């Protein structure tokens, strides 16, 4: 079992960041996410928006890893539950893999909220619990996966920034004649 956590600050207000987070895929930094579907969406009595989504990912695992894991297909599925509270200005996202569960569990939790000292920027707190099951090298593999997650987290932050910047670009007039 490995617990990994990190924090990142986006230099954009919370609304901008979560609009991007809701439209995160596709983006050039996460090419392994190949499908996203909303399974359920509803408002709770407190006015918070719940979304349940299914993500399908194509990892392109190296042959040796596939041989060890004994699987010839590389499509994995993740289910994700997010809660957006527009009053409290929080977006919480929890995800877990629903395939390969006999081999590994990756549970992730992300929370986006305005920075307590600066409401114009947004803090993302991200944590993961990784458990590799039934393999004697499990703590080594968990360590490798934690490194992978750090690299992927960085890509995820770049992805959000990319989505924000590409949306902003649409609002820039082509000719500045004033």
């Amino acid at each position: 079992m490995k617990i990994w956590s990190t924090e990142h600050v986006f230099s954009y207000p919370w609304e901008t960041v979560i609009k991007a987070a809701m439209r995160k895929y596709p983006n050039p930094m996460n090419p392994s996410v190949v499908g996203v579907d909303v399974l359920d969406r509803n408002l709770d009595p407190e006015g918070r928006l719940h979304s349940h989504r299914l993500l399908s990912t194509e990892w392109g695992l190296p042959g040796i890893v596939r041989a060890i894991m004994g699987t010839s297909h590389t499509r994995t599925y993740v289910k994700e539950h997010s809660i957006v509270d527009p009053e409290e200005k929080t977006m919480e996202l929890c995800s877990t893999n629903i395939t390969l569960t006999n081999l590994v569990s990756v549970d992730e939790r992300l929370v986006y909220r305005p920075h307590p000292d600066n409401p114009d920027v947004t803090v993302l707190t991200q944590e993961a619990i990784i458990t590799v099951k039934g393999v004697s090298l499990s703590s080594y593999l968990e360590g490798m996966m934690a490194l992978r997650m750090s690299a992927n987290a960085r890509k995820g932050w770049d992805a959000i920034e990319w989505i924000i910047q590409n949306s902003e670009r649409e609002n820039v007039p082509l000719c500045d004649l004033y």
Partner: protein
Amino acid sequence: MNSVGEGCTDLKREYDQCFNRWFAEKFLKGDRSGDPCTEMFKKYQHCVQKAIKEKDIPIDGVEFMGPNKDKP
């Protein structure tokens, strides 16, 4: 972005556009005047649920109650 069900991608994109607009222009601004995407969501869901069954994707524990479980 594609749907997990290849035939559902167009329905997904239509729904996503509707939702993203509602999310940005109504929900985040405190406007609770109801969800204009319900019908689109139903069509899209019907397609996705079929694809999930066909592909045997293990999504236990997710309830398919549609977008209006709790109307404000």
